[in-house]
């Protein structure tokens, strides 16, 4: 069964360092997302991406964050200068269609990358 894969599963980084979280979405999906979940809290939307540009982003997704689809398979989230409060589980997701359309609108999530900023 196709699945979204994320690497690494765990990342420890020092405050101020740049990190890149990687994701391989399901191959025939066109819409890609990043979410995060701070320990014990809700899953929060960060950004959605389609056709090589950001479709929507949340207030959390400030200038420290960027996303890229560098090739036909990978989808990355970069945090330029990590802060302690960036420590969280980051989830990548993909869907075949936008949620307001019919068809393949289920969003499938990866196993997540646990980011710890020290």
């Amino acid at each position, binding site marked *: 069964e196709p699945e979204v894969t994320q690497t690494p599963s765990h990342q420890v980084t020092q405050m101020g360092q740049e990190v890149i979280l990687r994701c391989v979405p399901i191959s025939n999906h066109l*819409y890609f*997302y990043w*979410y995060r979940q701070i320990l014990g809290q*809700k*899953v*929060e*939307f960060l950004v*959605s991406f*389609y056709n090589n540009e950001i*479709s*929507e982003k*949340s207030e959390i997704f400030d200038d420290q964050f960027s996303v890229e689809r560098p090739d036909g398979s990978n989808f990355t989230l970069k945090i330029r200068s990590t802060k302690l409060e960036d420590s969280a*589980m980051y*989830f990548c*997701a993909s869907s075949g269609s*936008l*949620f*307001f*359309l019919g068809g393949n*609108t*289920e*969003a*499938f*999530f*990866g*196993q*997540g990358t*646990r980011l710890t900023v020290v």
Partner: protein
Amino acid sequence: SQQGEEDPQALSIQEGENATMNCSYKTSINNLQWYRQNSGRGLVHLILIRSNEREKHSGRLRVTLDTSKKSSSLLITASRAADTASYFCATDQTASKLTFGTGTRLQVTL
């Protein structure tokens, strides 16, 4: 209340019993999705119900949707210890954004 709030926050049942979790939301939606999350793990998609559907089944799962009350329920029948997890509803607040609820922590004991 926030978009996508589940209740109860925690539910403890014995194996073999049914578990019912509820989700309420505030804005109109096109789809509502339920997910499961084992502790510290990823989100597993369980079922999607569209706004023009009232009930949907998948194996031991039954989901209902009442758009007039802006609520949904997830029923797991004949629960198993392996069903122990957190369960979240997620609504499409916009065309490209899912908003997750606060989740219900389900504990199924032997």
